[in-house]
């Protein structure tokens, strides 16, 4: 049963990964892709790590640290990339305006 749940979490994580990554190939704006990527990478990775946690409960502290650093750093990286990339295009706009 635990194995089944673990494979289910790994599958969900992979689906999230492919869903976010495929939108990367489209020719949409940076912010659109960033939204898809940060959601899919963070949630997909957490689902995968939770699936691994079910398989190896002895490594609970390490995998919990991985989940925490994913939640914190990936979210913050998404914000910083959005801030830096959008202020770049704004400045360009003002100069041309």
């Amino acid at each position, binding site marked *: 049963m635990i194995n089944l749940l673990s494979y289910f979490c790994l599958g969900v994580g992979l689906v999230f990964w492919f869903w*976010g990554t495929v939108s*990367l190939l489209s020719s949409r704006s940076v912010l659109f892709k960033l939204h898809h990527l940060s959601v899919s*990478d963070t949630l997909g990775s957490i689902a995968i790590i939770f699936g*691994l946690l079910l398989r190896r409960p002895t*490594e609970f502290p390490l995998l919990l640290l991985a989940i925490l650093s994913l939640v914190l750093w990936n979210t913050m990286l998404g914000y910083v990339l959005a801030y830096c990339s959008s202020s770049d295009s704004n400045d360009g706009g003002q100069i041309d305006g």
Partner: protein
Amino acid sequence: MLNLVLMAMIVALLIPLYQAWRDEDIWQTMLALASVSAKSAVMILLVSILRDDWMIGIVGVIILSVGNAGFMLLAHILKRMGDS
């Protein structure tokens, strides 16, 4: 079975690598490489579970935190270069 999951992860890793190679815009490339770093760190964690060697797992966790922090600094540097 976990090897199949690892193969699927490698395929999911190749897509942003292709995007980073194809696109000229620096922010699209940063986006793709940020995705590559998160995915490779999770793959390292999977390999550490497969081999039951948690030293490799520690490397994956370090990449998750320090790698993303490095990307943030790089983004700010690129922004400053764009401003000046």
